[in-house]
């Protein structure tokens, strides 16, 4: 079983990277881009747990380690390969 975890900055939190990349895209001529926000995406491989339990475990991993909930939001999706 695999999971993809997405960790993104909360709305309203400054994203210096995104801002800078956006400006750079403009410079390169991609004027159609109006905003860029950069986050992390993690691909996690997990041993066989029932889906429900896996969901709970992932939630707690995110809260404890993978995301810093003071400034970041997270979401994840579970899938079978």
């Amino acid at each position, binding site marked *: 079983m695999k999971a993809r975890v997405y960790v993104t900055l909360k709305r*309203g939190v*400054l994203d*210096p990277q995104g801002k800078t990349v956006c400006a750079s895209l403009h410079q390169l001529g991609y004027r159609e881009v109006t905003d860029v926000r950069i986050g992390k995406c993690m691909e996690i491989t997990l041993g066989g747990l029932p889906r429900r339990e896996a969901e709970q475990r992932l939630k707690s991993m995110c809260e404890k380690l993978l995301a*810093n909930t*003071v*400034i970041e939001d997270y979401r994840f999706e579970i899938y079978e390969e």
Partner: protein
Amino acid sequence: MTSEPQVTRELALAHGMTAEEYDRAVAALGRTPSYTELGIFSVMWSEHCSYKSSRIHLKRLPTEGPRLIQGPGENAGVVEIGDGIVAVFKMESHNHPSYVEPYQGAATGVGGILRDIFTMGARPIASLNSLRFGSLDHPRTRYLVGGVVSGIAGYGNSIGVPTVGGEIYFHPSYNGNILVNVFSLGIARRDKIHRGTAGGPGNPVIYVGSKTGRDGIHGASLLASSEFDAASETKRPTVQVGDPFTEKLLLEACLEVMKSPGVVVGIQDMGAAGLTCSTVEMAARAGTGMEIDLDRVPLREEGMTPYEIMLSESQERMLLVATPQTERRVREVFEKWDLDASIIGRVTDTGRVRVTSRGQVVADTPARALVDDAPRYKRPSARPPWQDGLAEPAPGSIKDISNGTKALVALSTSLNLCSREEVYTEYDHMVRSNTVVRPGSDAAIIRLKGTRYALALTVDCNARHCYLDPMEGARLAVAEAARNLACAGAVPLGTTDCLNFGNPEKPEVMWQFEQSIDGIAAACRALDTPIVGGNVSFYNETEGKGIHPTPTIAMVGFLVDVKGAITQWFKREGDLVFLLGDAHGSLGGSEYLALLHQRESGRPQGVDLERERALHDLVRGARDTGLVASAHDCSEGGLAFALLECCITGPQGAVGAEIKLEGKGRLDELLFGEAPTRVIVSAPAECRARLEQMAHTASVPVSLIGRAGGPRLSITAGGGTVVDLELAPARTAWRAALAGHLKG
């Protein structure tokens, strides 16, 4: 436009004001404040911005000296170096934000102190930090250490200012309140110093730097002005994220625009309380007023209210006053660096800060009243009854030792005494290519390019001493900082402090604070090192538990010639080892007692400031005569640990020593007892007579205690060997210990 809440007394209380403070605000205005005005009063009169509990005591600090150009009151202090060059420095705390979000809290702390320096027209060239964390068995400690250190590194490295020194200690009193104190120093031409004044009615007021967002509304100011409790988690405003890249641009642009005289009339960073604090303070300092239009403030988010814009603590922003003739130049420079620069208003002669939004006046407050008429409290203070209980005669029932090797190894690999290399290698301590003595000696030394001058930097505080005896602890902290400079070969130029304490509404905390102020004042006077500025951080308490009083002292020293720099480690086989100062130390408040006997008790040995000063003069004098190869301050861990450090801290590897100590009494006290006014120096054998002669003239005790060389440190006392240690493995263990502790 969204209508703003009606201002009531209750709302004022919810803003952290007292009923009297609210009445005072109403009186200052002559009417009920608007919502935005209430926000302005509440932040300006918060503990963090107004120093209402500390101001009357800070006045006792010595803030004058022949080299002092700018004392407290500006964004940073200024002292003369020579040849028209000045040093600009300050220290600030960022304790609460760093506990909430260690990486960003520490990072934005560095960003803030750097802005304080370049606001003055100085280029920051070195930083220090002083960190306190809880014990390792507290579940959050490791996370906090990792985050804080990486945050300091992330910001400082990226902006290209070397972090050349600092200190880190662990103690359970910081479990719920870590301390992150950051110091930065810049240099400038004396005639290019800028100040935060809004002179010249009619002059344009220009906003430069990042856009304003909703981050940190009521952040630093409120967070740092009340105790921490579980509710702060929910009350907590959005944490600010630092953008060192934008700050680097801001730094370059500001320095460029300040290079030509007359372009900038006044400039101030937007730190705590953002636009509010910068407009009010700049106008108050100049005795002028200001009119600003919030519609012209560059915003990052839509729908921000005037209240939010005035109180936002978004990072990497500055407020600048130019003239009608120079405003174009300002805009050109900021455009060159791809930064926003927007004229948001004008200086007026009304003495008021008038804020409009969409054609409506949302705030109109007197500037001076907000600063000068801020409440000032002489809070009750009292020596706590438990204080006497701490002074129990130190060794008490503790059994003496017959051999010190094991204890020495334990100390050298302990969390508080082991090498800090694991941390400082994460800081770029070499960028700008000025670092002559890197972290790891008593003081860091940086050269000043284009001159022969150098500066030595150190930051010190033994909070256990301050807990056991706040007045003496503060004196000891100043003495130690000055001693570290002397051991580097430098004369103190000035001092900045960061006074970290618990809740000032508690009489015992206020007593600790007052005692510390008096201790610092006395020591700075005696050692000729005026206070050029500093910071007070109260409310370092969680659920009623306060930290050890921690008045951190950062001191800057001067070397006329960089060639006179001294380091602490033994250099050559065969050099003689001397102890300058009193041989006797005390176990009271020692690291030995705390680590090996879990006792924090006894009186730290006090400092005689006259003798301390004589010792410093002697070390520097001996250096000038070419008589010292190394000099090391002998502090935590006592004589034995200081000797071990002389052996193993050199970057090239260990140099051993054979030491013979005279001394009656307890062996643990002889080896590990602590005392100020002691320095270990090494010198070539032929220097002995002259060094002893100089010491006698200076009335400083001197004893030849051994000789450097060999692969071991061996100490004999009373005819027997009391320490015998092979240094190569001891050095490896000392270096690796911190990483090991932190890995857990």
